[in-house]
């Protein structure tokens, strides 16, 4: 990648001051994508969203969180870029549940780049575009750099946090799906099952109703939906 482009990326991120939201905006903008998001993962599952640049990006992250499949999940698990230049093409059937929902939301091409620093894996950078087509070589190279910058930025957000606590920026700026875990607690009490099983029930309900898991969880917490 041309050196000046890298410097531009770094300058843009620092200009915006701290804050996860800025990372995604800059990523989408610099990559000429329709949207970008950064998904946090650990223990092989999505844990939440550090940021997303628009509503469709947020939905793409939601879908992967709800369904446990998609470009970010694969990028993280396989630790390599996942490139889907045309979701509508037959080959995109690799994500049976994710693909139709992502298409319906308006995404045509999706790309996932793993976030890692050395051997430490943190999640994935998610890019989408509303029309099909591959990334060109420059964009691919830029995305790798951006993913590296994003990984370090996420770690920097956690640096200096008291033991056992999340960094202030992550606590305040990221969407770590706390409502889903509150709902899991409630459903586990309603059905007298473990919180793990309660989460599976919630996911199944969201999948069957074609709704984001967050929304279903809100209904549970708001008392509008009961499982028993």
């Amino acid at each position, binding site marked *: 990648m041309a050196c000046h482009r890298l410097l531009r990326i770094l300058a843009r991120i620092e200009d915006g001051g701290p804050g996860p939201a800025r990372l995604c905006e800059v990523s989408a903008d610099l990559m000429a994508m329709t949207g970008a998001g950064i998904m946090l993962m650990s223990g092989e599952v999505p844990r939440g969203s550090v940021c997303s640049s628009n509503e469709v990006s947020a939905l793409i992250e939601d879908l992967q969180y709800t369904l446990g499949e998609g470009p970010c999940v694969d990028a993280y698990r396989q630790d390599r870029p996942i490139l889907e230049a045309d979701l509508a093409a037959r080959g995109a059937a690799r994500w049976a549940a994710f693909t139709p929902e992502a298409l319906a939301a308006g995404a045509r091409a999706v790309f996932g780049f793993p976030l890692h620093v*050395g051997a430490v894996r943190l999640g994935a950078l998610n890019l989408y575009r509303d029309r099909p087509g591959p990334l060109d070589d420059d964009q691919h190279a830029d995305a790798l750099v951006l993913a590296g910058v994003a990984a370090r930025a996420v*770690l920097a957000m956690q640096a200096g946090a008291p033991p*056992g*606590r999340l*960094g202030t920026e992550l606590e305040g700026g990221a969407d*770590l799906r706390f*409502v889903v*875990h509150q709902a899991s*607690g409630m459903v586990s009490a309603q059905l007298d099952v473990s919180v793990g099983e309660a989460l599976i029930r919630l996911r199944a309900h969201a999948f069957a109703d074609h709704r984001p898991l967050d929304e279903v969880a809100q209904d549970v917490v708001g008392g509008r939906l009961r499982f028993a």
Partner: protein
Amino acid sequence: MTDQGLLIQTLVELADNLVDDFDVVELLSLLADRCVELLGVSAAGVMLVAPEGEVRVVASSSEAMRVVELFELQADEGPCPDCCRSGEAVINEDLATAGGRWPRFAPMAMQAGFRSVQALPMRLRGSIVGALNLFSAEPGALTVADVAAGGALASVATIAVLQQRVAAESRLLNDQLTHALNNRVVIEQAKGVLAERTGLSMEAAFEALRHYARDHNLRLSDVARSVIDKSLPPGALA
């Protein structure tokens, strides 16, 4: 005289070892062994200065070298501590005439079979990472070219050490992040369990968990776990 081909091969070999999950001690041991072959010294070793300032022997090409290096640290005297402190190279110091500079180290190292010693700094900009130590059985063993080659090897070792420190710090931060996230998840789940069983709002449930933790001098996440695994009945909190 240094064999240029072998030097380049060694530099490539060391660079190849700088992959994601490399073992820094293994890499520095390889470096010490290659120094003996390349520079014609009797023994080589690497000492590292920890970020807190403590100096440690990390790699030695022979047991005699290790013993002498450990003695240096104990006595806090010798070419390696000097180099780690000043960041300046010690070159071809003849132990037979170094009794004034190192009254305890010089006779000890000669007894171990060494005659001349050198220490090359491992340095990046302002900070001293450690020293590459090269000991010979003969006086004046290193040529100018040898010293330059040793400097190149020390540079690769410096990069390896710094890269490993960044990786270790990243791992630590990521572990802390995962741990913090898990704690938060458990607390949110417990809020849900408590809210459902007692009819409290989420905020009131959180307050109840916090009060109980504070009153019983327990960690909030531990109280949350007890609520989830039902070892703590909701009635005890609300």
